[in-house]
């Protein structure tokens, strides 16, 4: 009833308090119960509100789902909570990545729910590109499938920091420890082959769950006494987010989005608040989002402009909407003031001095091909890297990854959902960095110059035969 009076209980004050943000994605094969798991997480963390639940319960009943549930209540099809589009409900499938939101008193979560059947690479790449962690589902009755190997392979390629494998439908194998241990061993074997969880880049956890009944999803289950580890939500609440892991270790990177230069056109509300017009007449700052690392007042930085040698100067201001910060870190959006009046424009990158790899017009990359229009050698495309978009020529397609065997096969073309290696020649040099160490400045988009569609997700590789460290300059 919408005319309810709200009666806040005292503990809800805590629910209104701040948390940190954690982004994760789910990936799985057809019918492994992913939507049910997502529905279970949302339902058991009380992120589903009564009117949403009513609508789902009505639809479940209309379709004769399940009959009476185990606890004597009407069973509901939790998958209906996430399948949002008309076609999805009509066809009973998930078409596109859906974003869901829920919070516990420790964290706010953004969940990218990636469908598993058609276009799974496209969806998994999309969801994983921003995720701090990815949950991969396996059906306990089926174990590790070829598609599981493909998923893990994509996650390794995209350098997702935490990979959690949920062995679902553990109720359907009578909560058998033997079944779980076999699957766990298979997962760890694949992980080792890929380098997941062994090279310090990512960790790999395996959890037995029943999404349908809720075992080990939010709370630890007493039906898996042989499993001493945490429930899925406990893991998600405790893993460090990407910015918590990386920002101290990495060097400062800041693609310039635009120049803030009001030239007297100051905001009336700022003036009404007493802004000193004289002091801001010549205001000039470079606005952007810190993609990696952190910056302090007084830091030496290099300005990287294509076709020019890096210019080094000092940071004299870190502004955020009227506050001057002494320090800022990824992923903060700020505006930087520099000691020297260089000509700095959108597309330039400001980086910690002495840490910058020489800009290059030769781009060696892994491409996740996301378009039905295949890639051919000789194609002219656009490359969007940071805040700069340049023209590029595809010189060679050097191989296609067999995601099941992890081997590179020779090819001259890439098709939808293929992942391959290619060499591109850029119309202007870019400060490219290896994706292996730089999840932001090593990433780029390949765009179709004709219709503007996104063709591929690009991950910068080292030049063949290059030793990366030798390429650092300044």
């Amino acid at each position: 009833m919408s005319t309810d009076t709200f009666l806040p209980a005292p503990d809800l004050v805590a629910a209104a308090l701040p948390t940190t943000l954690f982004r994760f994605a789910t990936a799985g094969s057809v019918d492994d119960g992913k939507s049910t798991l997502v529905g279970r997480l949302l339902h058991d963390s009380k992120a589903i509100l009564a009117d949403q639940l009513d609508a789902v319960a009505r639809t479940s009943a209309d379709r004769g789902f399940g009959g009476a549930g185990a606890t004597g209540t009407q069973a509901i099809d939790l998958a209906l909570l996430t399948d949002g589009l008309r076609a999805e409900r009509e066809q009973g499938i998930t078409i596109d990545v859906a974003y869901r939101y829920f919070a516990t008193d420790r964290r706010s979560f953004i969940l990218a729910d990636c469908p598993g059947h058609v276009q799974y690479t496209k969806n998994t790449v999309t969801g994983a590109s921003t995720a701090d962690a990815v949950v991969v589902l396996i059906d306990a009755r089926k174990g590790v499938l070829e598609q599981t190997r493909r998923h893990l392979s994509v996650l390794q390629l995209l350098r997702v920091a935490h990979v959690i494998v949920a062995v679902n439908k553990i109720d359907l194998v009578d909560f058998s420890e033997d079944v779980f241990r076999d699957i766990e061993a298979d997962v760890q074997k694949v992980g080792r082959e890929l380098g997941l969880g062994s090279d310090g880049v990512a960790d790999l956890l395996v959890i037995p769950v029943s999404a349908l009944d809720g075992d080990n999803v939010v709370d630890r289950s007493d039906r898996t006494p042989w499993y001493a580890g945490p429930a899925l939500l406990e893991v998600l609440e405790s893993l460090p987010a990407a910015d918590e892991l990386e920002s101290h270790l990495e060097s400062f990177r800041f693609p310039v989005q635009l120049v803030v230069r009001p030239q007297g056109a100051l905001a009336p509300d700022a003036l009404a608040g007493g802004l000193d017009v004289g002091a801001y007449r010549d205001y000039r700052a470079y606005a952007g989002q810190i993609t990696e690392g952190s910056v302090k007042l007084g830091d030496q930085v290099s300005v990287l402009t294509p076709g020019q040698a890096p210019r080094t100067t000092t940071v004299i201001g870190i502004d955020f909407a009227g506050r001057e910060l002494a320090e800022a870190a990824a992923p903060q959006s700020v505006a930087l003031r520099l000691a020297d009046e260089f000509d700095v424009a959108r597309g330039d990158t400001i980086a910690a001095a002495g840490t910058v790899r020489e800009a290059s017009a030769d781009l060696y990359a892994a491409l996740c091909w996301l378009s039905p229009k295949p890639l051919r050698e000789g194609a002219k495309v656009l490359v969007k890297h940071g805040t700069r978009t340049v023209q590029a020529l595809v010189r060679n397609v050097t191989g296609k990854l067999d995601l099941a065997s992890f081997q590179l096969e020779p090819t001259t073309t890439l098709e939808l959902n293929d992942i391959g290696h290619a060499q591109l020649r850029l119309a202007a040099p870019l400060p490219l960095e290896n994706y292996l160490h730089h999840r932001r400045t090593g990433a780029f988009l390949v765009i179709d110059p004709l219709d503007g569609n996104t063709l591929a997700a690009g991950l910068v590789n080292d030049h063949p035969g290059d030793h990366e460290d030798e390429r650092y300059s300044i």
Partner: protein
Amino acid sequence: MSNFPSVAVDPDAAPITNEDLEQSVQDNDAAETPIAAPGVASGLSEPRAGLIEDQPRGAGAGAAIGVAAPGRLSSLDTLESEAIHIIREVVAEFEKPALLFSGGKDSVVMLHLATKAFWPGKVPFPVLHVDTGHNFPEVIEFRDRTVERLGLKLVVGSVQDFIDSGELAERADGTRNPLQTVPLLDAIQRNKFDAVFGGGRRDEDKARAKERILSLRDEFGQWDPRNQRPELWNLYNGRHTVGQHVRAFPISNWTELDVWRYIEREGIELPGLYYAHEREVFARDGMWRAVGEVSRPRENEPVISKTVRYRTVGDMSCTGAVESAAATVRDVVIEVAASTITERGATRADDRISEAAMEDRKKDGYF
């Protein structure tokens, strides 16, 4: 530039008060940054309640030196940073953006984010309002005052004008929300806007949950949910062909609770009807409807006086109030955290038409 003078800490900035300290307990920044002195807001937003009377405003551009602890941003800081990044990307890459501004809380938050993104400069785009002619008068007054305060250009698309000219027909149920699409697309075309910011959030609706942050629309303003561009990392692809435009949703990843916590933290002013007030109402479709010129009770719908507030602010003919005693922003934050129904479920008759009501409207060019 090296002797930039005005960012030093202002020694005359007002001292920190108990109210500041109380605020800080609730404030995301409190753990990481020293409490900002009141003058620091530089007029970006209305002062926080409780600071208005007893604190001098406009203590200059005096700025507190804040230290953001790397890697420990609160979720609100992270969402704010993401939204500002998106707003700046769109302004940098498009010829002529505009921001949909209704005076509703999400659009007010959007405008606040835009002022922060371009500080100390003006917001570099106009605001666009599709006026159904059934708006709450206090919201229109708020809209005009805000536009004036920020020195913005206001473009209005009028549903009434289209009805008067016969290009649109009044619906049998009297609801005008679905009629907004035609004036919206007309305003976009006439003004050659190539990007339109909206305050849409993915937690609002199942169709919105699938929409991209930059959402391409064709010549007819239509959204094609099955043919969307993948959105990767923080790289937004806004390329479009002639006739197409893009809807940009910088607060896609915010929830209703995030919006309210942000309004509280930033001291953002909203139209008064978001807070509990006495109002003449009658019950219809399980909602409390305000008595107004376009919202008349039928014979069997007795009018009573109740303490209510609005969770969404739209067309008077289809927006319902909820019974609530939440008179302050803190009360509302707690109420929203405790709420057991969604804001649209609670207050929007137009979204109750069918399970896919929003999807169908969006496909036709709705917000």
